[in-house]
């Protein structure tokens, strides 16, 4: 690994308060160092004059690996024969797919856009070995994996008994056994009800039989556990009643559910908030609840969210919210895939086409943008498309252009449903983000919310050398008028550096590297007495043996621990 010097670029590094200053960035042994330490005679020098230099992007929520992504690949052959990347011998491999690209293509596409860290946000514990094996095949990016815990049979028993100590010990053991990073909650409790074919429209205060427990109890319980364990990321919540008109009230209740637990820090992350911000009573009078949700976000300092913006075109919805997917299938009338993981979770997959002329889809499109544009504190907002639910991650450049330019949005208003627009406040929003704001919502904020701000999402000394350089001159180009240039620039990075290696040059892959899988590890060991009890329950409920459940370290290509 050599030395690299990035010269004279306009650096946007929000975590270090660098806003468009012309600076040099030095890279040595995969880390950012002071430029004076670089020996210019030996180093590769990249001339970034008139270009933007940002930290590598961090995608906080993208379903890129795991059993349900694989099922979607099988379900959608049409997604694959219409798009392919050719093999370039010695440089990169081939691949196919738009919405659910093959693992290698996923990595290449991220790198080409300048993204270097990605989070697979929902993996049922039992299937996490598969998720890890698939993530090991995703090159160019560092990977994290969140653990689905909301419907875990044993956990729910402990929570309904009110035994928080044992529940904490269980979560601790599960996170370490499966090499995951944080707790994901998907429509809490719904997979339990789905076992009986019920669960559609489960609200936050409803009872979940057979345990005497409500989704609110699960959220609060897991939030407490997450705090006790000192996990770097807060709980990652997909709220109840996703995709049902009128669900913004549930979302607001969820946001407020953990306010009493916070001492000023962020303790709940509402994911793909767009799908949870619908006002109105039914699909016929749906309107945007983005304003209301953004208002609560601005008020509550303990909440962060990601947008889950949609883009028009074909997408594949896949979530652990199985009853909703079954309902969606009856709307879309195309294909449906369902799966259930014993004791732990359920999932559904439905391909869906978002249409411009459809007013419901237009409302959805408005909400995601509203949420970002109405947020006062961008450090608690993240740009995502919930890939591939809202749109593939390759649409980020398009969404960045929409956020940076009112003119771009107005161009789109001409193409979308007028009825849908009239039910949202987006046309009245004048805010335009600048490059610094974009660097926050795509890099700094997600890194900070994930608790990775020590080594990801910034360009300070000691950070990982993940750098993206975009060929656009902020002095010359006015993003609000020249939005097409912005889109082009973010589509293909001029140069991407991953872990101190140049992987993309002028939008083309030049080298394939493999990143690490980041997981939490606890300094304290596990309680032997508890493990004995857990083993008993395990052998009673599961089809796998307790001793086979733990994923050994050597199964993973490259593991990097974050201690807590």
């Amino acid at each position, binding site marked *: 690994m050599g030395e690299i010097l990035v010269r004279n670029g306009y650096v946007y590094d929000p975590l270090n308060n660098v806003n468009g200053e012309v600076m040099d960035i030095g890279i040595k042994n995969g880390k950012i160092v002071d430029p004076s330490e670089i020996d210019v005679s030996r180093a590769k020098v990249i001339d970034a004059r008139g270009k933007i230099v940002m930290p590598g992007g961090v995608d906080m929520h993208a379903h890129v690996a795991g059993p349900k992504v694989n099922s979607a690949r099988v*379900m*959608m*052959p*049409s*997604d694959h*024969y219409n798009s392919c990347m050719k093999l370039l011998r010695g440089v990169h491999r081939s691949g196919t797919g738009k919405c659910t690209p093959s693992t290698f293509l996923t990595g290449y596409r991220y790198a080409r856009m300048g993204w270097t860290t990605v989070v697979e946000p929902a993996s049922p514990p039992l299937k996490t070995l598969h998720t890890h094996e698939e993530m090991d095949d995703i090159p160019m990016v560092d990977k994290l994996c969140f653990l689905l815990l909301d419907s875990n049979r044993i956990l729910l028993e402990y929570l309904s008994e009110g035994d928080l100590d044992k529940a904490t010990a269980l979560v601790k053991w599960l996170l370490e056994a499966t090499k995951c990073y944080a707790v994901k909650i998907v429509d809490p409790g719904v997979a339990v009800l789905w076992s009986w074919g019920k669960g559609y429209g489960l609200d936050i205060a409803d009872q979940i039989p057979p345990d005497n427990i409500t989704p609110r109890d699960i959220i609060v319980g897991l939030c407490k556990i997450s705090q006790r364990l000192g996990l770097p990321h807060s709980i990652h919540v997909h709220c109840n009643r996703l995709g049902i008109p009128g669900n913004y009230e549930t979302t607001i209740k969820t946001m407020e559910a953990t306010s009493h637990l916070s001492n000023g820090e962020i303790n709940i992350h509402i994911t793909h908030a767009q799908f949870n911000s619908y006002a109105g009573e039914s699909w016929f009078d749906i309107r945007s609840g983005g304003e209301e949700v953004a208002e609560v976000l601005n008020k509550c300092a303990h909440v962060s969210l990601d947008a889950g913006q949609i883009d028009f075109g074909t997408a594949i919805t896949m979530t652990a919210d199985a009853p909703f997917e079954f309902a969606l299938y009856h709307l879309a009338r*195309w294909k449906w895939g369902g799966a259930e993981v014993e004791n732990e979770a359920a999932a559904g997959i439905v391909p869906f086409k978002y249409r411009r002329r459809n007013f419901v889809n237009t409302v959805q499109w408005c909400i995601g943008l509203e949420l970002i544009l109405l947020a006062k504190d961008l450090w608690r907002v993240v740009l995502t498309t919930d890939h591939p639910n809202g749109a593939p991650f390759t649409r980020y450049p398009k969404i960045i252009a929409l956020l940076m330019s009112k003119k771009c949005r107005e161009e789109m208003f001409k193409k979308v449903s007028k009825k849908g627009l009239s039910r949202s406040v987006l046309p009245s929003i004048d805010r335009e983000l600048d490059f610094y704001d974009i660097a926050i919502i795509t890099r700094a904020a997600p890194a900070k919310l994930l608790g990775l701000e020590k080594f990801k999402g910034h360009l300070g000394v000691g950070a990982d050398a993940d750098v993206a350089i975009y060929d656009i001159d902020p002095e010359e180009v006015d993003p609000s008028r020249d939005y097409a240039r912005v889109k082009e620039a973010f589509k293909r990075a001029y140069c991407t550096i991953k872990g101190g290696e140049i992987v993309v040059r002028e939008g083309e892959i030049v080298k394939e590297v493999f990143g690490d899988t980041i997981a939490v590890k606890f300094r304290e060991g596990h309680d032997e007495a508890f493990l004995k009890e857990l083993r008993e329950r395990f052998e009673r409920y599961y089809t796998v043996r307790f001793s086979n459940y733990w994923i050994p370290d050597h199964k993973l290509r490259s593991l990097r621990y974050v201690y807590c």
Partner: protein
Amino acid sequence: MVRRVVLTPRRVFKVPVEAEKVSPDVFAGLSLDDIKKLKVHEGNRECELGELFEVREEGSGEEVTIVLEGDFSKVSRVGEGMSTGEIVVNGDIGSFVGYKMRGGKITVKGNAGSWLGAQMAGGTIEVFGNAGDHIGAAPRGLRRGKGMSKGMIIVHGNVGAEAGAGMVKGAIIIEGSCAALPGYGMTGGTILIKGDCAGKAGAHMSGGRIVVCGYLPEVLPSFYIDSVVPSVKVKKMKLEGPFYLFLGDALEDPKCGGRLFVHVGKNPHLGEFMKLVEEVEEVD
């Protein structure tokens, strides 16, 4: 005046050749040397058209007729997306002939492979031998109603399974017999089978017509009997019956927009339906 471009294989191909550039739209306006330099794939190897085929030219003019002489059974995607001109194949040809074609004419004197005229949106294809599976169909995984949307396919021999799957409009005329599942998920258009059909005709259809003039082993239980009609007219051809008229597929669409005509004389085992129709007529 018509310009004829004649292609002959230089050798027997062992691996499939993908020749989507062999189309009158591409050849029009190109000189013979440029045509020879067009890129085609032999297996995973990219090579020039002139490397694999002997190319010669006869006559000159705006309109192009491509003549394929010899064994082309390993060559696929000929005439992909063509909108004008003509292709004449004097022998067998591989799969995906006329894939997404919009106009013009393709004549195959021998047999054709699978996916003949898949997703075609205009023009005419005539095959004098047999054709493979999925003629005029939508590729795998697409929504119903993404198949052939216009134009005509005439096959003088037999065809394979799933002819006209997902078809929207246009006509497929099969002189010989046909394997299972003709008109799978079709939403419009006409399929005429002059010979026998192996069964499951019109599964998941929600519109359009299928006419079976020969033997059909069974009608799917999700079809309703409507009446017996004396004759059916397809593309100005009058087919003498009588025919049973079934409506379906009730599983796909409760409105039962699809119509399945089955010849009465060739299918004595469907006599039960005749009794039903007669009973209803007596009541009326």
